[in-house]
């Protein structure tokens, strides 16, 4: 049973001709089409309806098709919270606020006090005003909410006087992201580049000083300096790539990607490295075309690459890196898949979810699991593995070739794809990383 029952159906289906609000809907529609510069035909394109529809239906369809979330709110008395109801919410608003399809009280959809205040000001003070709004979903987004009073009072079914307001959300995530990205980039870059830079200047000084005439020392120093310079350039590459991914994190990827192919490609490119280290691959993959996910191919490749690369890096010679793809899991199934949590916990490690997706309608995921037989990690390190520059103390990662950003990049890409990420590890039992992605919605 829904919590907040509404006395009347709230979301008018386009077919309904009973809307008492037709007059102001008409005005609103005229304004909106004027503002957006869209002709009615163009809107009909987006949501095809039979040609002989009535004007009111067309207007509702137009509002429904608007890309920005839009609410119409109705209220009776200022102190009557249950009197504030959402009488219309377009598709974008329903998606943003998860409004139950049968309609809802305003507070059941929005609790944010400033937004409620802005709406109240329009309803009872007849003032248009605005405020920023950050719903706390997995992908951080920033909206600007504008509320404006709508003219004309109506009467509810009980005969009470109602007031109406229009609430419009515009997306300001991009602007905010770009600003934050600059700040973060500068902070991280200056902090992390300091160490290699200090060592470079140190060596330069030595080369000018007492190592000036020692060809052997000069060679050695130059070699170290090359390594440091390479490290700095890798670091900058990774930071730039992370910033780019973060910037687009709220935009879902388009396109589809075959995980089996991706894993095979990545395994091929890593062969030289595994041959050198004496590490073997054990691949358990479904047939091509079976492990399809909705995703950006390049980014997915980067995820798989980082995970397998890490596993190989931390594998001692003579061991195996197992890569497995499992299809047709629910999000719960993905979190629980092949759990060895108890054995891990007994050995001082454990299993932990590093990223959990928001609940989505088609609950179908494909999981990629990369397991190594390396040294493993203590439980205490697990929650922080995907933090930037977090390093597990005392762990040898093959002469510090890592930048400390690999898993952070993985996490941000997976989050952009609305997926999840798990780790399972214990000292002596190796580490397993798993990521899961939603399967593309079936068309047709």
């Amino acid at each position, binding site marked *: 049973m829904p919590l907040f029952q509404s006395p009347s159906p709230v979301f008018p289906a386009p077919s309904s001709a009973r809307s008492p609000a037709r007059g102001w809907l008409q005005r609103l529609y005229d304004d909106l089409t004027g503002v957006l510069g869209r002709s009615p035909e163009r809107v009909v394109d987006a949501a095809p309806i039979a040609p002989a529809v009535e004007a009111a239906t067309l207007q509702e369809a137009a509002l429904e098709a608007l890309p920005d979330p839009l609410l119409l709110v109705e209220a009776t008395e200022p102190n009557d919270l249950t009197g504030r109801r959402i009488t219309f919410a377009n598709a974008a608003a329903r998606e943003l606020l998860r409004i139950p399809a049968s309609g809802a009280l305003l507070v*059941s959809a929005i609790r944010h006090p400033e937004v*409620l205040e802005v709406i109240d000001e329009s309803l009872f003070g007849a003032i248009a005003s605005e405020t920023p709004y950050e719903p706390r979903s997995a992908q951080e987004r920033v909206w600007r909410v504008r509320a404006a009073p709508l003219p004309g009072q109506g009467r509810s079914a009980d005969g009470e006087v109602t007031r109406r307001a229009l609430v419009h959300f515009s997306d300001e995530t991009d602007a905010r992201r770009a600003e934050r990205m600059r700040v973060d980039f500068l902070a991280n870059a200056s902090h992390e580049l300091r160490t290699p830079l200090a060592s470079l200047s140190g060596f330069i000084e030595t080369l000018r000083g007492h190592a000036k005439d020692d060809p052997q020392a000069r060679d050695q120093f130059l070699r170290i300096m090359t390594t440091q310079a390479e490290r700095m350039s890798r670091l900058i590459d990774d930071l730039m790539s992370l910033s780019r991914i973060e910037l687009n994190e709220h935009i879902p990827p388009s396109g589809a990607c075959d995980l089996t192919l991706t894993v095979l490609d990545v395994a091929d490119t890593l062969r030289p490295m595994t041959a050198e280290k004496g590490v073997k691959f054990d691949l358990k993959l479904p047939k091509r075309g079976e492990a399809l996910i909705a995703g950006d191919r390049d980014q997915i490749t980067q995820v798989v690459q980082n995970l397998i690369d890490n596993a190989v890096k931390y594998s001692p010679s003579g061991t195996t890196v197992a890569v497995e793809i499992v299809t047709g899991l629910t999000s719960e199934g993905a979190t629980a898949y092949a759990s060895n949590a108890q054995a891990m916990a007994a050995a001082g490690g454990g299993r932990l979810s590093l990223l959990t997706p928001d609940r989505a309608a088609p609950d179908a995921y494909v999981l990629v699991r990369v397991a190594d037989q390396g040294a493993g990690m203590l439980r205490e390190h697990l929650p922080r593995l995907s933090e930037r520059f977090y390093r597990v103390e005392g762990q040898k990662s093959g002469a510090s070739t890592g930048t400390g950003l690999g898993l952070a990049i993985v996490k941000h890409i997976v989050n952009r794809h609305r997926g999840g990420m798990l780790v399972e590890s214990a000292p002596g039992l190796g580490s397993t990383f798993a990521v899961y992605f939603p399967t593309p919605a079936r068309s047709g």
Partner: protein
Amino acid sequence: MMTANEHTLKFFGEELQQLKAEVARMGGLVEAQVADSIRAVAMRDVGLAQLVVGRDQKLDQLQIDIEKKAIRMIALRQPVAQDLRRTVAAMKLSWNLERTGDQAKNIAKRALVIADAEPLTPLTRSVERMGKLVLARLKDALDAYTNLDLDQAMGVWQKDQEVDEHYNSLFRELLTYMMSDPRTISACAQLLFVAKNLERIGDHATNVAEMLYYEVTGEEIVGDRPRWNGGEGADVDRGFA
């Protein structure tokens, strides 16, 4: 025509909706308080911290209002079964939210002290990260309450340990910092309290989920709360705050 009995039932339904709406609104205010207190710590924003401290009174007032209304409803309408559970749950929830608000106020007070000290950027980042996790739990719990979503409530309940683990990890990190540089001790100690407050807020979110479960089913959630007691932080767990 309605009978007198139906009238009472209709009234009660409306009053209950009103009560739940007020709890939801209070929840929104608490979420904002927690979010703002975390931001005050992260951005060293003294003005925002003072604002959070000042706004706490409003929460106390809301809590008293909700409690009065609930008691009045129980006294006058004498609800039974689920109606009674809903009324009581609303009251219990308001207590919980008020306590959560207090934790946010405490964090804001710490933020005032932290803003005076030298910046400890990597540490405040970690605290901010934990804050976001706790906020997500709180949001999920309140969403579950407004939508009567038992699955979501169970999710919050089961994920309780993630917050605890974050706390333990942060605890260790702060200790390491204090040991390596004693000048940071006073600021780190403040951050430690902030982390503890956040952990408590996580517990409150779990309580909200438990109350919702009780409200809907009339039963307690079966089984122990998943909990991990392995870390140093866990040993001194109940010693703080």
